[in-house]
């Protein structure tokens, strides 16, 4: 078996037992990347010093394992573009807190992965370095914005990867590529050194082959950071202790199947609910606040925050000037500038922030009755390449079911729950919990994954 197909846990165990060397692990990965990245375009930059860096880390927790990092995380000495030519020549002089913590724990930042430029999108088609393809079926998109990270994992061009989510950007590509994606609570993982998109919802998180791998990585990412004032002092547990649990007595609320455009998905998700019940949980359909309004809330809040966050790219201190922004970034910056301008802020921004409060209240009500909530990750399977052309709100519509929990800040995990035999495309089950309860989404995601065969890496064992 080629070592690039290993899960993170298997790679760590194998290195521990000396079943193979770091050289062998990196060789197999480099071969796979060399063969396939020219088609898939998951990676924009490969760290040529990876093996050397890995070899001095073999006594640390993460033992020198290679990670794929979304190219909006600043990595000291390694080009960071956010997939925009504005930052074409940007070599950061510092590292994001996430990549520094992972590096300190023994991981190597092996490569930087493609994304929608500035993380604006849900297809990876808006990257100014070309689109990424879905390794499960090359006629299809990987989703986004963390499409490169999800594709690297799905195509076994990475052992595990890191992405970031503002409203669906971890869970939607994870679902479309048939991988696991964990979006932590807003404020659980530091945003310091991540190219800012919408600062009030940006959440870094892992995209991995298994729930266990996501738990291992979250252990090394989560926690308070003095450099990010929105990070919480809430204690970080060892997330791996929530693996291999039963779900006895767990109450699950099932969201969004009352929406007519999702009726066709019921046949795919009904079996998943049966599996959860067989593990001891009870599941019932619930009525939630209509997610369509979250599209508008997110559109206003995100464009507004983008317009101020991207004001810093002047081409003076670093990067190229503002004429290099692509069409999508221009649209978002300018619409945000408009909705925040004098006379319009109440009509748009403040109204959106009031409706955001209604979503928070709705989730509080539901979590009064249920331990976790589940829904489909996406309104359907991956879309074909080219699907975003002329679709100004493509991402917002594809992320319809994830936006409410994102604007509320909740932790969630997406796990594969169906594979279409004809297209080899996947659907994801989105599992949400109250603020700071990553333990619950890991417990439920892991129990579901181990009771089913949708996860393609389970046959490794």
């Amino acid at each position, binding site marked *: 078996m080629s070592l690039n197909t290993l899960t993170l846990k298997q790679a760590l165990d194998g290195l521990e037992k000396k079943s193979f060397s770091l050289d062998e692990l990196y060789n197999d990965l480099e071969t796979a990347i060399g063969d396939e990245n020219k088609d898939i375009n998951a990676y924009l930059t490969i760290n040529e010093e990876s093996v050397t860096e890995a070899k001095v880390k073999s006594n640390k927790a993460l033992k020198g394992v290679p990670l794929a990092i979304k190219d909006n995380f600043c990595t000291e000495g390694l080009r960071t573009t956010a997939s925009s030519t504005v930052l074409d020549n940007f070599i950061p002089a510092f590292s994001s807190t996430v990549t520094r913590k992972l590096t300190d724990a023994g991981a190597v930042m092996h490569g930087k992965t493609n994304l929608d430029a500035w993380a604006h999108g849900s297809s990876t088609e808006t990257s100014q370095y070309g689109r990424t393809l879905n390794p499960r079926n090359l006629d299809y998109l990987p989703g986004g914005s963390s499409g490169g990270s999800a594709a690297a994992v799905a195509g076994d061009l990475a052992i595990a990867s890191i992405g970031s989510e503002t409203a669906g950007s971890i869970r939607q590509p994870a679902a479309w590529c048939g991988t696991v994606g964990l979006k932590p609570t807003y404020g659980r993982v530091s945003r310091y050194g991540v190219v800012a998109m919408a600062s009030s919802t940006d959440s870094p998180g892992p995209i991995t082959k298994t729930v266990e791998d996501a738990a291992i990585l979250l252990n090394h990412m989560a926690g308070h950071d003095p450099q990010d004032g929105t990070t919480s002092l809430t204690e970080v547990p060892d997330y791996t202790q929530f693996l291999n649990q039963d779900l006895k007595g767990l109450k699950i609320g099932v969201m969004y199947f009352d929406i007519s455009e999702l009726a066709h998905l019921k046949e795919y998700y009904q079996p998943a609910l049966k599996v959860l019940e067989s593990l001891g949980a009870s599941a019932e359909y619930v009525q939630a606040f209509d997610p369509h309004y979250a599209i508008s809330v997110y559109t206003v809040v995100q464009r507004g925050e983008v317009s101020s966050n991207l004001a810093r790219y002047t081409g003076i201190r670093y990067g190229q000037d503002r004429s290099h922004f692509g069409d999508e970034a221009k649209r978002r910056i300018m619409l945000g500038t408009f909705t925040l301008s004098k006379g319009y802020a109440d009509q748009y921004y403040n109204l959106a922030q*009031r409706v955001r409060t209604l979503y928070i209240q709705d989730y509080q009500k539901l979590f009064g009755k249920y331990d976790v909530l589940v829904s489909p990750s996406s309104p359907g399977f991956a879309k074909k390449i080219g699907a975003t052309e002329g679709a100004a709100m493509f991402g917002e519509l594809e992320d319809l079911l994830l936006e409410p929990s994102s604007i509320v800040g909740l932790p969630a995990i997406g796990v594969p729950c169906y594979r279409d035999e004809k297209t080899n495309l996947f659907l994801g089950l989105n599992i949400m919990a109250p603020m700071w309860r990553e333990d619950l989404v890991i417990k439920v995601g892991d129990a579901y994954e181990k009771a089913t065969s949708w996860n393609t890496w389970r046959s490794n064992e």
Partner: protein
Amino acid sequence: MTGSPKITSAQVAHIAKLAHIPVTEEEKEKLATAFTETLAVVDQLQEVDTADVPTTHQVTGLENVTREDAVDERLMFTQEEALANATRKHNGYFVVPQVIEKD
């Protein structure tokens, strides 16, 4: 209920100036259409009853977060590092576009 505004290309030109984004005449027309369409979707928010609902600008509940006023050298750039990515520099300074008109 306020009607959804129709954005004109003159407004786009004004927004572009505020946002410091260069746009061509052709782009202005396209952007005006795109903004009008997006704002029509966003205006669905006016259907929601938000009387007496407070705004939420952040979800963690944290307030007045400060950190110790101490120098942390790991977070400091040397002059060389600070200038390393600048395309135009002069005698250890960033070169910025002129904003004050000469006589």
